[in-house]
Each structure stands twice: as structure tokens, then as C-alpha cells.
């Protein structure tokens, strides 16, 4: 396949079957390999769409500074697009994210502002909103509320899945900004009767949930509950277990959030088997495992890996 530039190669990722992890017969699991994007994650799609939209609207002009709260992947994607398009970028990132993410961000030229570990991404959003107020000329694309995030998946990821697998019955993805689930979910709901849209939400260690008042929680503006069929909370241990199974059984080296999505996908597969229904279940491999090697997720026992992940933002 030939493209004029790196950005032109965005999307068009493989959808691969999982012959060993699928229960068999009429119930099959399919992995959408989003690690095969320019910077190695699903976030390249929304990053590109958000920058394009801001350019079209005249918000971004040459020399502008982009600001974004991000636990990593969105920042890395934006930094790559920013470098190619001639923007500066400042990423607000919680300090409890992996070392590789910081190195990658710096490599692509981003300036990193750290936010406190306690409170996780909620704190990064709060700090970024403060910086945006102090620097009115910076452009915050704001992945949590930017419609171009969900639109990227409505216009690209969703159509790719339906074209490759017209018999799709379930779509499962990690829940972060909610952009992937909202975009693909809306697209499939319009075209596939009774399609099930399932969210896998990471359940972190206690530190991440912070000690602030419960009324100061955060729900992304993009989130529309009516798009989802259901939503599961997946603990670190289950996400790690499934991440390793995916590697051992199917040879796919994925990041930890993918294990969370696979856990929910296998849960839906078991349900379909029990109900005697056919199912083609697509789940998203959001990124590869490379950025998480330093967390120790892939070595030692599951319990040891879980202990090392305590307090880390792994999705």
C-alpha cells in the first residue's frame, strides 16, 4: 500500500479473527488492530480530525500552541500531527503515567506539564482548564468534549468494521473520552439492527480516584449513555490476565487497556454461547504493549504485575 505521507496512511487497520480465544461455532471474536496507526494508537484518528476541524474553523493558524490534557496516547498523536503541521504543543499529563509515554511526547517535541497523581485524569483536565484561562491564545482541542473526536470514529473506524464484517453483532471498546464508543456506536446503530455497544471501563487502584469530594467527579461532555448497551468496570488484574492471554493464545502484543476490552468481549461471548445465539464480537486493540514494558505488566506473576500497576494510569 502506498501513501503520499504518513498522515495519509491513517486508519484502514486490520480486523483479525481470534481462532483460539473464540468459543467457536457461531460465536467469534475479532480484534481491530488500532496499534497499526502512524504513532501506534487509536488516538491518531481523533487527533487528526480535531486538528483538521480547528484548521477549517480558523482556530489553528501557523505557529499556534495546542494545549491538551492527556494520559498519553492523545498527546503523542497530537504531537506528531503538530510537528508535521507546524504547531507547538503543551500536554498536561498526570505524573502516574508510564515513562515511555513521556519519552515519546518529548521525542515528538511536546512540552509536558505534570498534574498530581491523585485524582488521575480529572486533575489533568482541571490543570489544563486553568492553563487555558491563563493563556487565551493557546488552543485547547479538548478531546473530552470535541465532536471531531467521536466523528473520526463515525466516519472511519465504524465504516471500516462494517465493511470488513457485515455480520457484526457486538462492538466493545475501552471507555476513556468515550469518543470511540460514541462514534462507532452511533454509526453501527444506524445500520445494524440490535447491535450491542459495550464499554469496558478501567478500574484503577484507589489513589487514582482521589480524595476530593464525590460531587467533583468528571463525565466527558461527549458521553451519551443511550448509545451504549452496557458498561463494565474491569479491574487491573482481569485486564492484565487478558492482555497476557491475547499474547499467549493469539500472538497479539497489546497494551493493558486492550485486556480490559477483551475481558468484556469474552463476557459477551460467554453470554451468547449460553443463549445459543450467533455473535461476531469486535473489540478494539487501542495500542501495542511497547509503552507499558516499564510498568512490569508482562513479567512475573499476575499478582506481582497487579501490585506494580497500583496507582498507575494504565489506560
Amino acid at each position, binding site marked *: 500500500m502506498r501513501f503520499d505521507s504518513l498522515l495519509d496512511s491513517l486508519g484502514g487497520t486490520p480486523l483479525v479473527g481470534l481462532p483460539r480465544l473464540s468459543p467457536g461455532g457461531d460465536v467469534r471474536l475479532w480484534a481491530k488492530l488500532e496499534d497499526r496507526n502512524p504513532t501506534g494508537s487509536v488516538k491518531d484518528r481523533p487527533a487528526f480530525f480535531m486538528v483538521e476541524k480547528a484548521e477549517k474553523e480558523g482556530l489553528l493558524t501557523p505557529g499556534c500552541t495546542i494545549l491538551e490534557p492527556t494520559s498519553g496516547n492523545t498527546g503523542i498523536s497530537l504531537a506528531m500531527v503538530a510537528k508535521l503541521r507546524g504547531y507547538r504543543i503543551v500536554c498536561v499529563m498526570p505524573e502516574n503515567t508510564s515513562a515511555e509515554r513521556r519519552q515519546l511526547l518529548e521525542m515528538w517535541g511536546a512540552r509536558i506539564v505534570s498534574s498530581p497523581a491523585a485524582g488521575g485524569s480529572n486533575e489533568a483536565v482541571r490543570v489544563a482548564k486553568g492553563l487555558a484561562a491563563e493563556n487565551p491564545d493557546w488552543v485547547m482541542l479538548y478531546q473530552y468534549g470535541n465532536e471531531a473526536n467521536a466523528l473520526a470514529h463515525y466516519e472511519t473506524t465504524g465504516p471500516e468494521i462494517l465493511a470488513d464484517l457485515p455480520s457484526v453483532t457486538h462492538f466493545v471498546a475501552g471507555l476513556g473520552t468515550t469518543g470511540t464508543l460514541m462514534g462507532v456506536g452511533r454509526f453501527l446503530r444506524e445500520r445494524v439492527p440490535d447491535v450491542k455497544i459495550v464499554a469496558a*471501563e478501567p478500574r484503577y487502584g*484507589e489513589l487514582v480516584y482521589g480524595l476530593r469530594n*464525590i460531587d467533583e467527579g468528571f463525565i466527558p461532555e461527549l458521553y451519551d449513555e443511550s448509545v451504549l*448497551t452496557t458498561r463494565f*468496570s474491569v479491574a487491573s488484574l482481569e485486564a492484565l490476565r487478558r492482555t497476557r492471554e491475547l499474547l499467549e493464545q493469539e500472538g497479539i502484543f497489546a497494551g493493558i487497556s486492550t485486556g480490559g476490552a477483551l475481558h468484556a468481549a469474552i463476557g459477551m461471548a460467554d453470554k451468547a454461547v449460553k443463549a445459543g445465539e450467533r455473535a461476531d464480537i469486535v473489540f478494539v486493540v487501542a495500542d501495542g504493549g511497547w509503552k507499558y514494558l516499564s510498568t512490569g505488566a508482562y513479567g512475573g506473576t499476575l499478582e506481582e504485575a497487579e501490585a506494580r500497576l497500583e496507582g498507575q494510569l494504565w489506560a
Partner: protein
Amino acid sequence: MAIEVRIPTILRNLTDGAKAVDGKGGTLDELFADLDTRHAGLRDRLVDAKGLRKFVNVYLNDEDVRFLGGLETEVADGDSVTILPAVAGG
């Protein structure tokens, strides 16, 4: 047997620091009312006049109760309920 309810850090001042407490009831609403008799004020932190509070997420055996039946979700002995504040991802 009872229903195990996992309490987030920010609400443990109401459970004498306990990370998990046991309760009973046929629905989530009854379970919260039961918990409130021993941990006064807990129900009010989870529920308001319109139902579950906006930034409170409750999971029954890891599934979000908003997709099951909200406060009317049926619960039974041996179930596990997890309460968490809403956080951002991405």
C-alpha cells in the same frame, strides 16, 4: 451470606474506615437503605431526589447498574456491589 459493598476512599469516613461492608436487600435501593441504618449518611452521598447522584458510579458484579435497572436493580446474597466516583480517561 450477604451482599458485599465496596466503599471508595472518600466515603470511608462513614464506614469507620472499612473498605467493604455487608448489607442486605432485594434491590439496590433497599440495600442502600439497609447500609444507612449502620452507616448513617451513606445513602445521602449516593442518592438524591432524582436517583443515583451524577458523579457516583455503582457496579453490580462489575456491570454499571444504570444499564441494569438503576436503584431498582435486583440484588441477591453473594453479589458484589462496587461504588466509585466518576473519573476521566484518555
